[in-house]
């Protein structure tokens, strides 16, 4: 008997708001998925629907073997429930001292989380979210407010996840983790671009660097910085 497959299936779900609409179909299997799209295309709405926090107008969502779900909202301050940094960490049920040490915020343990900069707050929030394993992890714009160094660290952290489904909703174009499937929202519809590197040829939000590398005849294997470096090295010989 095989191991039960963890997956989430979107069966023509759609959301309608005044003149705006979004429809989505597809199966998200175990692994890291990237959902790209322009600002306002419906990435956050889709993330909320997948987390079953927002009702949809039609269709349905099937979840197989998914018992734990986590959604990281784009704006970390909206997650705050603690009045101090330590209290905020504790509200996530994670080891406070370990987390704060890892992100270099030990000295601000007693400070109000609202006194942190947006970048520090995002780091704190992501560290708490990624400290636990979830069957379905939805990350809405996880790279916003992070500098390049932190984005690289986040990619590495996501890459370390060995099980579960992780869906990244972002319009980040430069620093991304290695992914198993690429999706995009175009004209209000979720489109399955496929598995990289084949996905690049029908991905309308393909990052400019990947496009340039392909034009030079060196298609990267995936979208991570390591894959891009490898493709650059191939050109240089």
């Amino acid at each position, binding site marked *: 008997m095989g191991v039960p497959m963890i997956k989430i299936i979107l069966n023509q779900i759609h959301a309608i708001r005044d003149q705006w609409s979004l429809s989505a179909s597809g199966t998200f299997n175990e692994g890291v998925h990237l959902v790209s799209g322009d600002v306002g295309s419906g990435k956050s709405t889709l993330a*909320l629907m997948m*987390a079953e*926090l927002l009702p949809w107008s039609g269709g349905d969502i099937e979840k197989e073997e998914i018992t734990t779900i*986590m*959604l990281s*909202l784009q*704006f970390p*301050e*909206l*997650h*705050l*429930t*603690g*009045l101090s940094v330590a209290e905020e960490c504790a*509200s*996530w049920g994670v080891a406070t001292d370990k987390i704060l040490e890892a992100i270099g915020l030990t000295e601000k343990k007693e400070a*109000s989380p*609202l006194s942190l900069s947006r970048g520090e707050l995002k780091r704190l929030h992501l560290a708490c979210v990624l400290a636990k394993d979830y069957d379905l992890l939805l990350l809405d714009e996880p790279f916003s407010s992070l500098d390049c160094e932190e984005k690289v660290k986040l990619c590495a952290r996501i890459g370390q996840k060995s099980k579960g489904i992780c869906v990244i909703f972002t319009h980040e174009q430069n620093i991304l983790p290695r992914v198993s499937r690429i999706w995009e929202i175009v004209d209000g519809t979720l489109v399955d671009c496929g598995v990289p590197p084949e996905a690049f040829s029908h991905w309308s939000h393909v990052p400019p660097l990947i496009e340039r590398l392909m034009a030079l005849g060196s298609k990267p294997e995936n979208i991570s910085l390591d894959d891009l470096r490898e493709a650059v090295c191939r050109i240089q010989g």
Partner: protein
Amino acid sequence: MQDPRIRIVAAAVLSLTAFMSLHGAAAVFLWWMVFTPRLQLAKRIRLVLSLIFMIAFFSLVLQLSGGEGLSYFTRMTVIVLIGIWIFSEQKSGEFLAMGVWLFGDRAGFELGMVAEMGMQSLVSFTADLDRIRMAEKIKGMQWEVRSIVPAGMVLVHGALVRAEDTAELLAVRGYQYGGTMCPTFFTRPLDLVAGMVALGILIFALIPVSEFFILYR
């Protein structure tokens, strides 16, 4: 209602009428039933229930302490219904157009812009509150009295940050005082009817009905 001028005047007149007397509030409620989308409004704005609960609490206190709690509850609930109607009908830019139409390009523009910013804050405030409640659900927490302090801090902090951003943006663009605008309004015949009926209700509420009937006898 398409014309914001009639809408705002009607809302002011109806609120005043509802506050003045119980029979005025009853007439305003009838107006709300006839000229607004009624329950769809209440469904769309979830703050309604909490507002009505809050009014009910104060009304009960008033009633128990010998005041006219029931009358207060009825009048205030009708005012809340008018409030949610005007809030849901309001479109971006209408306050600015109203301000300029009433008081011109300088003071009117300023007043209109302040009102627009206020409305924008209210919209952001409710959107943020929705997200905060979702975030609490994500953490497995339930919305309770304890949640008010951190949520309130986040909301106030967000409002201050947005105000600062707007102020910086205006300063960077060289904004000093007033602006130019040519407001245009679209008036449907039904808007005029609803406006006239609202004024009629005010007049009806101003008539001392009991004295009129005594004289008649």
